[in-house]
């Protein structure tokens, strides 16, 4: 194991979500901040334990919805009243009740798009390359293993002590380095 090459962080592999949560708690207690946990399925409270609480996503979706709604209605109003008003079955030019369905659909469409794009954006996806993938064990994060990674960027990070600290958490899969 190369002792000098720059590394991304140290990776501890657990078999049960509870063990992982427990490890995260202790890591934070030990003062580690720049770290992340990786699981094959969403584990409740894990994010909170990592100190992540609120996401901006709902706001983004709301904005998207409002834009879709207003834009949708205005599009129809402009076309039917301002640009080319036509007498259609002697309905009023501004037949707003008839404009509701399209307005609604566009609201949903914009909101949904902003939800998806927002989520990807905030998560920094797509990111096909990531140092973690260098760790051969990490592939199991999408199967049945639970990982905790303390990143070298953390100010307390020190190869030896951090490795020692992690192994004290008794990760069943052991501790490994993640090359940069």
């Amino acid at each position, binding site marked *: 194991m190369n002792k000098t090459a720059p590394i991304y962080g140290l990776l501890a592999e657990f078999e049960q979500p509870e063990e992982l949560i427990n490890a995260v708690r202790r890591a934070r207690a030990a003062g580690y901040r720049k770290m992340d*946990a990786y699981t*094959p399925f*969403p584990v409740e409270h894990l994010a909170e334990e990592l100190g992540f609480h609120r996401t901006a996503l709902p706001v983004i979706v709301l904005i998207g919805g409002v834009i879709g709604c207003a834009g949708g209605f205005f599009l129809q109003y402009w076309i039917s009243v301002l640009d080319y008003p036509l007498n259609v079955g002697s309905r009023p030019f501004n*037949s707003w009740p008839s404009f509701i369905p399209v307005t609604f659909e566009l609201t949903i469409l914009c909101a*949904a*798009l902003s939800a998806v794009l927002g989520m990807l954006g905030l998560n920094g996806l797509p990111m096909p390359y990531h140092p973690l993938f260098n760790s051969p064990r990490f592939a199991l994060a999408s199967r049945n293993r639970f990982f905790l990674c303390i990143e070298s960027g953390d100010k307390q990070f020190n190869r030896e002590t951090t490795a020692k600290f992690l192994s004290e958490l008794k990760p069943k899969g052991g501790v490994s380095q993640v090359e940069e």
Partner: protein
Amino acid sequence: MSQEIIGSGHTYATITDKISSIVLTRKTPHGWLFGFGVGFVLVMLLLVSITYLFVEGIGIWGVNIPVAWGFAIVNFVWWIGIGHAGTLISAILLLLRQGWRQSINRFAEAMTLFAVACAGLFPVLHLGRPWFAYWLIPYPSTMGIWPQFRSPLVWDVFAVSTYFTVSLLFWFIGLIPDLATLRDRSSSRTGRVVYGILAMGWRGSAIHWHRYEMAYLLLAGLATPLVVSVHTVVSFDFAISILPGWHTTIFPPYFVAGAIYSGFAMVMVLAIPIRAVYGLEDFITMRHLQNMAKVMLATGLIVAYGYLMEHFMSWYSAEKYERFMTLNRWGGPYAPAYWALILINIVIPQALWFRRVRSNVIMLFLVAIAVNVGMWLERFVIVITSLHRDFLPSSWNMYYPTFWDWSTFIGTIGLFLALLFLFIRFLPMISIFEMRTLVPRSEGD
């Protein structure tokens, strides 16, 4: 019989391996080849029909004046209806925190996409000049003229395309973690590259999971009213008109109910053989089938109530055209279709009241088939009987479907099958990561 929603003895690993193996295994089962082959042949039939249609014109179908809408619209509504179960199961059941949804939502969503794709064909094909279909989209043309937003057909364009887009997003978002699994487990280089691209570098970070679940929840919240709106808009195609038998306010609710009805029936029709073929009884358990049967029973009753109210109103309104329309459905030239509808769509599904039927896979399968046929008949009765005898007796006339009507319809069934088989072969038909959450904690590894 098991009341579990997942067979006992499963661990994260077994679930993962079991489901992903269906996709990653090298050899293709013969059953798959046969099924896909059938679908493919029918797709060819569809292509021939469409080509001939474009060359000759809409006249090759049975439509005429007064019956200017025929199979095309019947099939459109039918497919759209089927396309409702998917998003509904995922979205609404997610919001209701129904754990049992997690083994069926994936292919229910896929089914939605394919059904909507089939449905989307018909409004275009049935145009007199399909190559001008894009005139229904508002774009700055050199003609300086725009779509006419009072027309339900324009609403359709927006509703159906929105529905397709949102369903696609919902489905894809759901797929991302599983794509990551496949990426990490695929043995072939190409497999890993392709799945890798699609997985967008998902690595299961806790923070990502957090936002992911939020987004998924929001999508579900948006999709739920959308599902309801889509079939409401479709029902407006009829309800907005002035025709006896179409012009009625009860259409939106009972169209939506009908859609869910046929949607669940179709899920059933697909789920039962698939779980048998791929041995997924542990994931799609009797509990699932029974729950779906109950939903079908409930929605079926709403549909029945819809029929009842239609007839009640035509009597209560004392509207001579409405009354004639009802009598004409009962005793007119298309009465056989009507009574067949009542039998297949209302009477037969009542069998679901009995536990013995609900717990018998074969019976469930047959009932589900019946419901799909019945719902098609419902649309046929609505479209044809209302049109063929409306206001002026002098213009009354009959409608007879032609070979090309049938070939186009059957062709789209083929398209649906072909797409579905491709999906089963190349993507996990059951959501792996959501199944993992069902594993009792003790059985970790």
